[in-house]
């Protein structure tokens, strides 16, 4: 069982950065005259988090110094688009910190959203029937919104917004309902569902997200603790996403249905 830590860090951190960018952009557009300095710092954090995610993804490669070649197959591969989108997004996030323009912020948020979309496509391969659907897309978007809203409370001392709370609630629901549905699916899906539901890491992750949701809903606990709980929860469930999803090739020669 491989937890694919570089991919776990890459997906979680880029989703966190995209969520931050989307909320920062939204606030810049609805309230353009508010305080500038905390917002600018938040964009610096956004770029930094995305950059760390991109560096983590290099650790997954057998040839990290040739990573630039991942841009070659833009005509066919969603992974090429994902790499391009997140590279541009990271550069733009830093640029917004220096230039501080609403138009650039909007562009960064849109490109981040494109990155999330391509990420949802990349991690839904046909070899894994349980996630060869809209599941990764939904989980990645909900993670981005929940993490983005939660992180901004740390950086900008902002209050939690309803979107962040709802995303957390929906994330828990999707993470618990999907494996239950897989149990009534094909052999590979059923095995995936069982692996997820039998995994201590999965339940720990789900409970941590639930705790973060309850704490934000009732406004209990420190902001750092709430964010740490949510981040660890998303991180743990993402580890199971990469390690506990069964590949069709693992059942070769065995009965399928």
């Amino acid at each position, binding site marked *: 069982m491989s937890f694919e830590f570089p991919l776990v860090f890459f997906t979680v951190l880029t989703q966190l950065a995209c969520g931050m960018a989307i909320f920062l952009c939204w606030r810049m557009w609805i309230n353009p005259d508010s305080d500038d300095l905390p917002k600018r710092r938040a964009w610096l954090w956004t770029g930094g988090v995305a950059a760390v995610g991109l560096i983590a993804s290099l650790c*997954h*490669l*057998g*040839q*990290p110094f*040739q*990573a630039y*070649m*991942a*841009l*070659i*197959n833009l005509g*066919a*591969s969603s*992974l*090429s688009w994902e*790499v391009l989108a997140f590279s541009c997004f990271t550069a733009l996030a830093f640029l917004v910190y220096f230039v501080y323009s609403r138009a650039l912020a909007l562009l960064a948020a849109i490109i981040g959203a494109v990155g999330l979309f391509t990420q949802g496509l*990349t991690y839904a*391969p*046909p*070899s*894994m029937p349980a996630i060869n659907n809209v599941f990764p897309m939904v989980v990645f978007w909900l993670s981005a919104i929940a993490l983005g809203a939660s992180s901004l409370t740390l950086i900008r001392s902002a209050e939690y917004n309803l979107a962040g709370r709802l995303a957390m609630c929906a994330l828990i629901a999707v993470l618990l309902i999907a494996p239950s549905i897989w149990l009534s699916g094909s052999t590979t899906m059923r095995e995936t569902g069982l692996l997820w539901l039998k995994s201590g890491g999965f339940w720990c992750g789900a409970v941590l997200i639930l705790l973060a949701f309850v704490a934000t809903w009732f406004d209990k606990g420190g902001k750092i603790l709430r964010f740490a709980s949510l981040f660890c929860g998303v991180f743990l469930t993402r580890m199971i996403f990469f390690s506990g999803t069964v*590949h*069709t*090739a*693992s*059942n*070769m*020669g*065995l*009965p*399928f249905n």
Partner: protein
Amino acid sequence: MRYAFLLDMGKCIGCRGCAMACKNFYNLEPEMVWRQVYPLAEAIYPHSGRAFLSLSCNHCEHPVCVTACPTASYTQRADGIVVHNMETCIGCQNCVRSCPYGAPRYSATLGKVQKCGMCWERLDAGLLPSCVLGCVTGALTIINLDDYVAPGIVQYPAGYPVMKKISPSTRFILPKEPVMYGVKP
């Protein structure tokens, strides 16, 4: 012209000669295999004589590795063979994750992915692939899917993932039920 492997499961005895011939020809590392022989589970073939699936890359009609690879290291030739270019591979393993048949394999030593290319260099020279030559029972052969018509050939035997959109080119002749001499079926 579309090349494909044809496995007569009735003839395959699971000796792994095909896998060894491939490994020897390409001088693969000890942990690397491009062709693997999978025994069929008893639930599928409940007889004392076993049946096997000898599988490598299926050189699919719509190969998912070609679209998954971000460096365009996979190309599909006009004759259907899917060739992997190791020179441009960056070892991202997206093809390993994406192929439903587990054909591309990652070599941690090389930091790159490898897979069967149906010995296209040998085929171009008018020779048979090494696995076909290594098969002692003649169970594994090469066919041209465009003009090969034979009764009883299946694309998806039991124990083999059904992927209609991808359409793997490998074809199978199913093993017959064992006959007990002196007993009428």
